[in-house]
């Protein structure tokens, strides 16, 4: 029993030695892989086409575009709406100049470039937003007062010299000022107050009551604008100090610190408060002011909410390669891999058994007149193959792993024996001949065979036939053929890369007739060549065989080939009385060199 630990030792050693073994494959492997991958990719649907993630990305982009388009359309509508509102306001200004609060401020701005109408707008919005709950009550109070004062102002033809004390008292009540000291100081300093300080004073007074500030500011600013417009209407002039007062009032409105505001509690400013209250009385149509202010505020609000145009926004879009195209498609096509063809050349020698297979179609004249029993025997000849050989050369090409094509040139010397059943003895020359010889002699007579020394040229055949004597004795003659063969064969090889491989061969062979010598034992010989016009100069034969290849080295192989050849057409010409379909068995020994 084997020790398991020893078994493990054996496994471990081999595993350790080979588990991480590495051997670089030849470059042809990757070339083959790449070629197959290229071939496969031609039939592949592009990857991006069937990746759902990319479809999602495309859908997202479309959705994003739709949303962006919607926003753009909305923005476009808003701009149109806004421009329509502005034109409406302008129309109102034209038709009712007294209601043009905005226009008044613009005119003021024109007269005093240091002031921007936007600031007034901002103040209005801020004032409204700071204490909206207080607005209605104060507004009503001021409005009621203003109505009375307006009627008085119309009667005074634009002069702003009023009973300041009364106006101040009324103003104190109207605007809810509780600091009586300030009011007193104001009344004392009233004669020295200049209109330029009217706004500052008004704002300062208002600033002392921060809770009431928004309402006051709204009313005060409205009054000042109205006052300007009224002045403009009445006198065609604008008091230059009004604008500066307005600018200062705006600055003061931005101050939330009461201390700062208190610093402004100067007599002049209190006088300005008086002036402001007086301005309140000059307000011609306070009721008309409210809708104008409302329109202004709404237009401003819409303007403030208008988004910045798209071109000014930083839009961060993620970069995505939605339609991914593999880089491999950009690569240059690989050169086609040409597998090197293998050629080989070989030589061999083939001992063979050659049988000419000659048949008598028509009995020669000398045999035709015989009696039946003798005639039958005389005309029955037998072909017996003799020892033959062929010298072969081959050249071939390996078409694929298994298939090959080869051609060659061979010289065949085919020996055979013909045993005739009887012979005819020429009465004149006393020369015997069997039926084959006699037939050839007949052909010689017909074609005047020049190479038949035994019989010479033209002999008096009819005389000979007439005087011939039949001898019932067998007569054998040797047939010696010579052919030049050009075989073309295809081969299929099993185990082509193994030490021992097997090839099955098949093909056609052209046999070029060189000569034939028909020789009798007596020495008589009939030699025929292609020029005699008896044999076909070329006849076709089919060939097949089985070859054993033994690999001697990478280049050299030894082979043993068994062949069978059979003519598929007669060796004699068609109009002859003889017929021959030679066939051959042979075993070839040879060597082959591959290059």
């Amino acid at each position, binding site marked *: 029993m*084997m*020790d398991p630990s*020893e*078994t493990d*030792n*054996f*496994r471990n*050693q*081999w*595993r*350790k*030695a*080979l*588990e*991480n*073994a*590495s*051997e*670089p*494959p*030849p470059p*042809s*492997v*990757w070339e*083959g*892989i*790449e070629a*197959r*991958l290229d071939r*496969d*990719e031609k039939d*592949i649907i592009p*990857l991006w086409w069937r990746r759902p993630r990319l479809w999602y990305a495309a859908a997202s982009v479309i959705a994003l575009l739709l949303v962006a388009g919607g926003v753009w359309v909305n923005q476009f509508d808003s701009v149109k709406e806004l421009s329509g509102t502005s034109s409406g306001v302008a129309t109102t200004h034209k038709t009712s100049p007294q209601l043009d609060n905005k226009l008044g401020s613009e005119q003021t701005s024109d007269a005093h470039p240091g002031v921007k109408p936007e600031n007034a707008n901002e103040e209005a919005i801020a004032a409204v937003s700071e204490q909206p709950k207080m607005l209605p009550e104060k507004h009503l109070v001021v409005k009621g007062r203003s109505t009375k004062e307006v009627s008085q102002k119309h009667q005074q033809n634009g002069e702003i010299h009023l009973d300041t004390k009364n106006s101040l008292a009324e103003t104190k009540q109207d605007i809810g000022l509780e600091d009586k000291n300030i009011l007193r100081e104001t009344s004392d300093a009233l004669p020295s107050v200049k209109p330029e300080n009217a706004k500052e004073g008004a704002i300062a007074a208002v600033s002392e009551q921060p809770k009431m500030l928004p309402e006051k500011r709204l009313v005060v600013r409205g009054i000042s604008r109205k006052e300007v417009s009224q002045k403009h209407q009445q006198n065609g002039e604008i008091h230059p100090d009004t604008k500066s007062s307005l600018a200062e009032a705006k600055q003061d409105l931005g101050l939330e610190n009461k201390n700062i505001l208190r610093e402004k509690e100067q007599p002049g400013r209190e006088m300005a408060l008086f002036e402001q209250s007086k301005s309140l009385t000059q307000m011609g149509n306070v009721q008309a002011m409210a809708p104008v202010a409302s329109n202004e505020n709404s237009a401003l609000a819409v303007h403030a909410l208008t988004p910045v145009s798209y071109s000014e926004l930083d839009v961060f879009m993620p970069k995505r390669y939605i339609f*991914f195209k*593999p*880089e*491999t498609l950009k*690569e240059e096509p690989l050169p086609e891999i040409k597998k090197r063809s293998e050629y080989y050349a070989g030589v061999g020698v083939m001992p063979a058994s050659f049988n000419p297979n000659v048949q008598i179609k028509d009995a020669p004249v000398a045999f035709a007149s015989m009696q039946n029993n003798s005639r039958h025997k005389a005309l029955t000849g037998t072909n017996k193959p003799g020892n033959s050989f062929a010298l072969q050369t081959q050249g071939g090409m390996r078409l694929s792993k298994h298939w090959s094509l080869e051609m060659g040139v061979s010289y065949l010397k085919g020996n055979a024996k013909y045993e005739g059943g009887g012979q005819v003895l020429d009465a004149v020359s006393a020369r015997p001949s069997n039926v084959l010889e006699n037939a050839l002699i007949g052909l010689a007579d017909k074609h005047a065979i020049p190479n038949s020394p035994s019989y010479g040229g033209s002999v008096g055949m009819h005389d000979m036939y007439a005087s011939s004597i039949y001898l019932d004795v067998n007569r054998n003659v040797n047939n010696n053929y010579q052919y030049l063969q050009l075989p073309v064969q295809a081969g299929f090889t099993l185990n082509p*890369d193994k030490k021992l491989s097997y090839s099955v061969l098949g093909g056609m062979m052209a046999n070029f007739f060189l000569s034939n010598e028909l020789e009798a034992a007596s020495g008589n010989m009939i030699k025929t060549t292609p020029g005699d016009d008896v044999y076909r100069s070329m006849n076709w034969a089919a060939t097949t065989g089985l070859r054993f290849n033994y690999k001697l080295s990478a280049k050299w192989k030894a082979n043993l080939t068994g062949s069978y050849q059979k003519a598929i057409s007669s060796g004699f010409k068609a109009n002859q009385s003889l017929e021959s379909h030679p066939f051959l068995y042979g075993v070839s020994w040879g060597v082959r060199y591959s290059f």
Partner: protein
Amino acid sequence: MTFNEHDLVNGCKQRNRLAQKQLYDVFGGKLFAICMRYTRNRSDAEDVLQDAFIKIYENIGTFRNDSPLEYWLRSVVVNTALNHLRQQKYLKDLDDIEVYENGIADREVTLGDFQMQQLTGFIQELPPGCQVIFNLYAIEGYQHNEIAQKLGISEGTSKSQYARARGILQQKLNREKRFDDGSVRNRQF
């Protein structure tokens, strides 16, 4: 060579030719050595390696990152080699065989004295059935019951074929006479 296995796999999944080439460059040598062990000659090994890489590229999408990539690649190559051997009818007649002890005292042989090519050559010269089973059992680490299931043979056949392979290899190693010392030990692997 440094490489990111995850990126390599993803590149191959996207059929990126550069990634495919890099995968081949990284693992081609090891996988070719496996092919050499399972086949009879270098030409067959090249065919198997080519087929295996085509399979790898086509099926890389099925690879999950829960195991090392090299194991997965090895398994693909081994399976491709087995298919190749089946096509070549090498695995046709795998029978239970009787193993004879040769009676020769085996010596402890250090395989480190041999070159990898020599050892691969020894394995290639084994009879086909022995060769496969030796590879699967001794190198790849499969158990006999797994080999039996994989090749459709009995477990006894796997054991006996392996024992035969072991005996042949012992003889080959002893014949080479590359021992770590000159002593003779009555010890087998």
